[in-house]
């Protein structure tokens, strides 16, 4: 598949950098600190791998140079995310969700299908479908770049995470990071850990909450998560059916096109059919517009999806805190037991103190993070909803003018 040819060259890219920055300001805490600016100006798709060029501009002294670019792969991002999650010190923070794996499967598959079905289609139809697919591919590509960028930007804007050593290495090390991919055992381990975690979550759910704030947050987040998950799924479906319709329109206009070409042999109908065709070409343009509209729905879907993951991260934070709480209570019990037995009391006391301390730090930073998260979410929703509504209005208006033109043309003759 010669999709490399479609890779964004500077020109198309410029446009989505803007979009990216727009999105950044939404989904990421506003951080006007220009000490660390990160973006991904370019990306290259080679087979299954996508190579992102991560460009950094900084005034921080911890970096050797004020400006540099490094090539990074998706796996490197995952590695960065995992190391952050595993760092004990960051337990009280909401670790920005890792970007999803680039998925070019669906456009690729479609492209493949299209190639197979080439014989059954008319030429115009084929070219149109191909263009459409290319556009879709490009959109997916842009989206992928964007989510990776957002991940880094959120890290850079976080007061604690931006100081992380691994993060700085990720940004600065100009060689290939050559992170080892997770092997099967680790994959399984991760899966197992997840299992244990969810079982643990159930277990510690019985632990009595000491802080109302966290109690509320927990119920809210759980509720919100399930809702937003559903909404995301529904929005995805909606977007997909919108796209189906756009595809239908393309095929329709291609068929009409060939029909009018056919009928042009007929004296009576020449003029009319040409008109018809013209109109439908326009209507089809409108449908391309419609596709754009559905792209804009991606704004909504994408927002929902992102916050779904973000909430997952927040939930993880809550889990870690709850875990710490449970640990603390367990250590309390152990202390009691030790006191009763009069054995290892100081050790137990030590442990209990540590647990309490850990829990307190977690609670404190968690509280801050969650409040931040809330504000961030509201701002992001506002921004995206406004943008979406504006775009919808814009598209509908465009369509209207097109349609009006069509009708005038039709009734004029």
């Amino acid at each position, binding site marked *: 598949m010669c999709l490399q040819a479609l890779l964004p060259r500077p020109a198309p890219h410029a446009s989505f950098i803007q979009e990216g920055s727009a999105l950044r300001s939404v989904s990421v805490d506003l951080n006007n600190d220009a000490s660390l600016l990160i973006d991904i100006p370019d990306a290259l798709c080679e087979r299954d791998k996508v190579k992102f060029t991560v460009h950094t501009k900084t005034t921080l002294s911890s970096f050797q140079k004020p400006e540099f670019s490094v090539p990074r792969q998706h796996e490197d991002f995952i590695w960065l995310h995992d190391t952050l999650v595993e760092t004990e010190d960051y337990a009280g923070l909401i670790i920005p969700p890792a970007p999803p794996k680039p998925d070019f499967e669906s456009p690729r598959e479609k492209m493949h299908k299209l190639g197979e079905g080439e014989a059954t289609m008319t030429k115009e139809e084929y070219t149109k479908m191909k263009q459409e697919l290319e556009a879709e591919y490009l959109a997916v590509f842009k989206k992928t770049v964007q989510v990776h960028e957002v991940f880094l930007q959120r890290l850079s804007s976080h007061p604690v995470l931006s100081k992380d050593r691994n993060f700085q290495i990720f940004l600065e090390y100009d060689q290939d990071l050559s992170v080892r991919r997770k092997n099967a055992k680790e994959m399984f381990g991760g899966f197992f850990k997840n299992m244990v975690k969810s079982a643990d979550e159930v277990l510690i759910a019985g632990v009595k909450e000491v802080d109302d704030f966290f109690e509320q947050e927990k119920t*809210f987040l759980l*509720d*919100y998560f399930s*809702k*937003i998950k*559903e*909404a995301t799924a*529904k*929005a995805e*479906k*909606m977007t*997909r*059916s*919108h796209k*189906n*319709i756009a595809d*239908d*329109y393309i*095929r*329709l206009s291609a*068929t*009409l096109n*060939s*029909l009018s070409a*056919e*009928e042009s*042999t*007929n*004296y*009576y*109908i020449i003029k*009319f059919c040409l008109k*018809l065709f013209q*109109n439908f070409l326009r*209507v089809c343009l409108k449908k391309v517009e419609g596709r754009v509209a559905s792209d804009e729905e991606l704004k909504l879907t994408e927002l929902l999806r992102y916050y779904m993951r973000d909430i997952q991260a927040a939930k993880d934070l809550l889990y870690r805190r709850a875990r710490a709480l449970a640990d603390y209570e367990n250590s309390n019990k152990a202390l009691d037991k030790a006191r009763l037995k009069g054995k290892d009391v100081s050790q137990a006391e030590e442990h209990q103190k540590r647990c309490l301390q850990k829990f307190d730090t977690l609670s404190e930073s968690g509280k801050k993070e969650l409040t931040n998260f*809330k504000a961030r*979410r*509201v701002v992001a*929703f*506002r921004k995206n*909803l*406004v943008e*979406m*509504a*504006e775009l*919808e*209005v814009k598209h*509908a*208006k465009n*369509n*209207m003018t097109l*349609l*009006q033109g*069509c*009708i005038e043309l*039709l*009734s004029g003759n």
Partner: protein
Amino acid sequence: MASSSERSPPPFPDTEDQDVLDSEEVGGRDSDEDDGEELFMSASNTPLTKQDTPTSPDSQASDLMEDLSVGPPSSQTEKSAASSSPEEFVDLTNNLESRVAAESSSPEPSDEFFDILGSETQKVEVEASVKADSGEASSGGPDLPGEKTGSSSAAPIINLDNDVQPPRIGGKVIDPLAQILGDTPAADPKKPSSAVVDLFEDDGSDIFTGAPQSKASSRPEKGLFGEPDEDLFGGPLGAMSKKTTENEGKSGTAKAAGPTFSKPTEPADIFTEEAAATTVPRTSNTVNSKANGVHSEEDLFTEATVELSLDSPRSSRKNEETSKPSASSSSSSLSAPARQAKPPPAALEELEDEEEAELEDKFDVLVSVKDPEKVGDGMNAYMAYKVSTETTLPMFRNKLFTVRRRFSDFLGLYEKLSEKHGPNGLIVPPPPEKSILGMTKVKVGKEDSSSADFVERRRGALERYLQRVVNHPLLLQDPDVREFLEKDELPRAVSTQTLSGAGFLKMINKATDAVSKMTIKMNESDAWFEEKLQEVESADQHFRKLHALVESLVVHRKELSLNTANFAKSAAMLGSAEDNTALSRALSQLAEVEDKIEQLHQDQAAYDTFSFAELIADYIRLLGAVRGSFDHRIKAWQRWQDAQAMLQKKRETEAKLLWANKPDKLQQAKDEIVEWEARVTQFERDFERVSATVRKEVLRFEKQRTKNFKRQITKYLELLLQSQQQLIKYWEAFLPEAKAIA
């Protein structure tokens, strides 16, 4: 010849028999005004029959041979006619000038004529149009004697409109003329090319039974020529006069032509009135009055005209073709020439008129199918519809009436109509197909949306089907249609049941038809038909594809509407879960907007279905009907060919008998030949008639399709526009809510 063969009314056998009879009694037949081809056919045949008796077998045989040899040219002619007719059509619609020019190209009539003789009609036409301007004033034919002019001026018209005659003429200038003049063919063979004037005079008197005598005396040749000409070419003339009045510049030519041809013309009047009632009232009136003075038939014609104008051009055409309706019956055989003489250009004219009429959307009959209602229970249940008719036509007893019909009644009507009119080449609008699946759903009584959708779709299709039937001028006149619309109780249409014996028979018939269709290899002599058939077939394919696409569009749209509804629900849920009040509000607002949009999508899906998918489905059905009419034409052709083969065989037998010198059987063989000749003639005429009808019907169909499509597409686009406007409204209302999030 194909083009001018509208003459024969439905009870064909009768008229044809009559024709045959007529051709034998030469002198004073009034009904000899069969149109051009018929004329020449009978003309060419009559000599034979006439000579049969007096001449010896030998000479007869040679005649026969001649006749045979004439055969092939005729097919050629047909071809040229066919190929020329589209051009005519173009002429008519596009550049009237060339048409007029062709008409007025009489100055060099002899040239043309010889060209024609060479059977290069097209060339003649080209020539004619080239000579466009030169011929303006020459209707008087300065150098040439009256007959010449007459003949010459007649000739181009023939080329243009009737196409048939000139080549048929073979080598004799007079022959065609004589034929044209009114098939007093007896004279032709005897007087080859001499004493033309005499001939014509004789013919004239014969034809007109002395009515135009005074005229004839004043301008003998012209008058004579004029009358037959008008008879034959009245239509085109009418058309022309209309055109010319429109084009001031050309009016001179028209007038020049006028006196020569259309002065005493009533048929022309009819057409002029039809075609250009308003545009040329003066001329037509004067002509009318003149005609009144001269002709005895004119009363009949005026009657006919009145009828026609009442019934609007379409029904008038119907009148012309079927002799059933009052107009034609009153005009009796005299009006025959009028009907017959109407060549396709006139038909095209009419089409245009029709369009004009329909542009105003003035239907004389408005049919609506309403209130589908389930009658009965279980598998015996059926849907009954209320069929309301609103009409201004006097042929109906009331202005407004309603009957209840069930679906099979609609099918039954179609069966009857297609049986009656299909073989004549009419495109009978097909009803929606039986749908066992859809109907079973309805029968089982599931009140879900799909069965309601099905019923509504079917109702719409039935309504359009009926409207198409009554819009067809010929079908409207059919007693079965009237019965269907008016009568309270209809006998149950049994044959439409799929599983009945009749249904089974029908299936077998269809199968045999399909087989014969495959086996009949028609060497298409008419490029027009070939082209059209191809066009229709490819259009059919495209429309099928289009239909499938639109259907999938509808499916996807419905999916979208469902998904939007789901999203709206979960957005509302999300809104309720949200703890930021403003955001929560905005989310529930978003849910509302999505809800409304869902409704929009649903409506849009309905539009897609009803104004787009159904439109296409209709046309797929109609295209099937068009193909059916083509098949009928091929069948007619096959009959003709078979008869010709038979005739050939008979002749061979006769020759053998002659050789063997068996006079006793010879007479029988001769009789058989005569019989088969008549049959060949009849079948050929049938074929031509069917061809002409098919052609006209196809043109009509195309015209209507174009118009209908335009209307529907406009409507569809308007609906789309509306929904877009709604969309804008919704989102704009949402915008402040989104902005209010803090």
